């Protein structure tokens, strides 16, 4: 929020353009000015994460849609959480369902939060905002 050096980059994995736009709008709406990088699907996300995209000395927050064609969110989460370099990255799952089984599965895999997509985007923005504060307090680890 202060400067780019300091701010956390939000990685948004969302296949639906509308949803991606809405998430970005809501983030902006609640004053989250962090840079956002959007990926169209799971594979693209994972290519970025596993490739050279992650810059050292930067902090990232991953927002993962569960239902995506190809690699789905759950699979990306599993890869992130089993990757030594990536496993400390905070992950918030975005989903259209509140299926308790999916929720518990994601928590088991190590997601930090779980948000149901539709409904009130105000509530969503609130969560992200709190998350942002939370991130600041905890000082999200920067990649080295």
């Amino acid at each position, binding site marked *: 929020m202060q400067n780019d050096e300091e701010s956390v980059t939000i990685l948004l994995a969302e296949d*639906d353009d*509308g*949803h991606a736009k*809405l998430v970005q*709008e809501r983030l902006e*709406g609640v004053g989250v000015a962090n840079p956002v990088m959007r990926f169209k699907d799971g594979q693209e996300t994972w290519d970025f994460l596993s490739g050279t995209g992650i810059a050292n000395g930067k902090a990232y927050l991953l927002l993962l849609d569960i*239902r995506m064609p190809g690699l789905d969110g759950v699979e990306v989460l599993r890869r992130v959480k089993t990757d030594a370099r990536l496993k400390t990255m905070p992950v918030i799952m975005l989903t*259209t*369902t*509140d*299926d308790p089984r999916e929720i518990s599965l994601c928590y088991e895999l190590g997601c930090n939060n779980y948000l149901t*997509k*539709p*409904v*009130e*985007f105000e509530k969503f923005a609130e969560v992200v905002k709190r998350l942002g504060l939370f991130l600041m307090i905890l000082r999200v680890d920067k990649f080295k």
Partner: protein
Amino acid sequence: MTRSFGVLLLTLAAALAVCFFVRAHYLRDATENIAASLQTINAYKAEEIVSWVGQQERESARLSRHPFLGELIAQELARPGSRRAQLKTWLSDHTTQKGYFAMAFLSTRGDVIVATPDYVPGTERTFKKAFGQAVKAGKPLLTDLYLDARNRPRIAMFSPISANGKGGPALCVLGIVIDPHTDFYPLVRAAPLLFAKAETLLVRKEGASVLFLNELDHREGAALKFSLPLSTPLLPAAEALKGRTGYFEGFDYRGKEVFSAVRPIPRTPWGLVTKIERREVLAPVNAQIYLRLALILLAALILYVAFYAVLLARERAARERIENAEAALHMSEQIFREFMEHSPIYVFFKDEKIRPLHLSRNYEKMIGRPLEELLGRSMDEIFPSDLSRKIVADDLKVLKEGKEVTLEEEFNGRFYTTIKFPITLKGKPTYLAGYTIDITERKLAEEALRKSEEKYRAIFEESFDGLFLTSPDGKILDMNKKGISMFGYVAKEEVLKLELKRDVYVDPQDRDRILSMVNAKGAAEYEVEVKKKSGEHMLTHCALTAVKDGAGRLMFYRGIIRDITDAKRAEQERTAHIRFLEDMDKINRSILSATDLEKMMGNILNTVLKIFDCDRVWLFYPCDPDAPSFRVPMEVTKPEYPGAKVLNVDLPMPPDMAKDLREALDSDGPRTYTAGTASPINKETAEHFGVKSQMVTALYPKRGKPWAFGLHQCSHARVWTREEIRLLQEIGRRLTDALTSLVSIRDLRESEQRLREAQRLAKIGNWEWDAAADTLKWSAEYYRIYGLDPSQRPPGYSEHLKAYTRESAALLDTAVKRNMETGEPYQLDLELAAKDAPSRWITARSETIRDRSGKITGLRGTAQDITERKLAELRIETLNREMADKNQEMENFLYITTHDLRSPLVNIQGFSQSLAGYLAEFQKMLGDVRVFAPKNDARVRELALAKVPEALDFILVSSRKMDVLITALLKVSRAGRIEMKPENVEMGELLRKVLDAMRFQLQEAGAAVKTGALPPCKADPGAVSQLFTNLLDNAVKYRDESRKLEVQVTGELRGGRVVYRISDNGSGIPEKDLDRIWNVFYRHERSGRKNGEGIGLPMVRRLVEKNGGGIRAESREGQGTVFYVELPTAEEV
């Protein structure tokens, strides 16, 4: 004197010469006399032996022609044992009477029929040979002497006995065994008095030997055992056997020199020798000769004296006369002495001092001392002191009284009679003279007679039969104890007073009849009824013999009597019993001869008709007096008296017959009814069936009701005997067995028929497999199921497997092998190998067959056609699978759909919200500035402030509503996808937690919840919790505001399930909607009320069904609703 001495010498010389002449002459005479005597004796004995043999042969012939014996034997042979007692009596009488050793009736094969106790079956060669000859020739025969099995000499006599006593084939042979010691040897031995020392020998040629047949004086037990070679020189016995007849001097069996007479005995193989030892016979002769020599010398001296006296006569004339007289006296004495020497009588003279003056020579033998030692001695020197004292006393008495006395004395075991008398000579002391006769033989004979008499008495008294003597005028002369007690008397005196005709015979004429028979034939046997002392009648068997004196005059009657009352009764009973057995045998044969049971029953009834010679034999069913009707399943009748005629047709039961049946059932054995007796024929039977006598018995086969079995006599009023009743009872028993079999077989046939029917209906066939023999047995239905030809025999096991498809055959084979090894039966569904037709299925079940030791010998079981069931099952399985697939598809569809529906909805909602935000921003800016042309300004403001917000609002509301719907659908679909984990649920506790969680909601609604007993169930606890929450939530949501909400939750066990009842007093559900409440999104329309999502009840239903339960509702609008939730009960832990 010299002259006189010369005369003396001369006289002596003459005397000596005379002496030697006399001796030679005398010896010759003596030898001639002995020879003559021996020959006479010999001839006499031979005659006697011949006569004895003849006598035995005649006797034997007589017995052979004995008429009554033939009769008796014929009866005995016809019925062994029937005449045994009589024959035995006859034998023992005859044996005793004739002095035989033993007698026996022998079969022509030599077996003993009846014998006296002493009889030992002859095994000796002689015996057997002679027996064989007698049987063959049919003529009586006397054997030679032989030694029996115990080495005793015997003679046997065989008389073949023919049936009528007139010859003809022999029924049997009467064998008589004679002990030669008693009957024959005495004949040989007894010798005339003079030749007491002589011995008679009977001999027989035995090969090259002479066999001595009788007992010898000088050799113990020689008879038939002692023999000498025929070549023994100068052996008289050998001479006799060589055919010599006459006098023979030789050496006897001891080698002693003997005189003998020999001869063969005509018509026998025997030789007879009568011999006397030379030394012995001549000893007295020599003694006499010497005595005589002495006498002659004495006579010579006397002559000399006489001569001398003549010389002196001139001187003493008178004295000469006296001397002559004395010489005469001497002569007389001489003669007397001569007589005495030869006399068998002992003669004695004693002087007044009782000293023997003269004794006959035989005293030497009697006393055992030479005469010289006896003469002049006192009695006590000669005889034992007792005897001598008696003799002296007797003698003195004789002398004193001068009378003749006769005495009996015993000395050295022999008996003597002595006659003593005094002889008084003038001027001399009185002599005592006398003679003694040896009476030992007579005495012994008398003793023997006495003993025999005693023996006879003993036999007479101790006999088991009554023995008696009666006089011709009808009195009892004597009767033994047995006879007396038989008649019930005690003392013999009582019996002797009886008049036979008056007191003994039941029919006095019997006596005349019997006597005429006995008088004519000499003896008779008969049965006669007599009276006892008590007046009681007694049937007796008697044998009466007329006893005649030597002149043939009737003296008295001798008889044997036996009480045969009991024997007769026993015989009658035996005859009855034999008849009974014969009749039962006929029944048994009629049973055995039948090939099937109906025929057998017919045979039995026919046989019964014959045995009883009655008019009808019938079976009657049932033997039940209370039965409304009866039938006659079987009857056999004589043609002139047909019976019921209609067989096996129900006829109404007349009361009369019912009475008979009741009596038959109450009775242990057959009941009899006879017209005109105390137990008459009932009216119905008498009139309708013309029965005059009836016998009925109830039969109790082991199955079904009792039967009645009976006989009818229509020809006459027959009184059934005890035996007949017993026979019918026994036949009834056999018939009962037959009936049991008949009924059982009929039942079995029906049962088999039913089994076949059942198998046909159930399409079950049964089979049995004997593993060792590899034979299969199949029922008719089995053939049908397998589509096989019932006329074909089942093949072996391996062949039969071809009936199945390969998979099924392998399955079955494995199961069969395991069953044979372990005894574990199988149940398999098997597919039959079908050629063209659609496949068929059977269920095969097995059962193990074991032998007694428990070893598995085979299998049996059933095969049921389950093709239809199998096909139905397959269809259901397919349908179920399809359905499950569909369900899964539906679930997935629902899940995916709801998810995918949500995605665009998020955009709609999200962007609508964004749009609302942008619009609010736009409206705010619109109030601040005027940027539009005036003519557009109003329209812009209208659009921005009214139209767009209105449209946006519709979009937002609708999208929110859609979100709610999709969320609900998601829930429902998720409920379908949740996996249930059933466990035992304590409902009381669970409900408490549910109520706790809902407390606020319930309190707000003012609801009162009552819970009753809640049995545990088995279900997923989360699901149960949710469904109860939903139901209670519904109760709260749809409560009637006008009254306080009351909810009751109770439960009960019903069958294997728990049924929970949740009732409320809410607004209720309209009847038309009751079916729709389970549909998703059904909501009861109510104004002004908060409505639910519309998925509560469908969720509940899904949850209940997922847990294997069910749910239904009852409701009345305005009154309340009751939900019944049914779940499986908790399992016992």
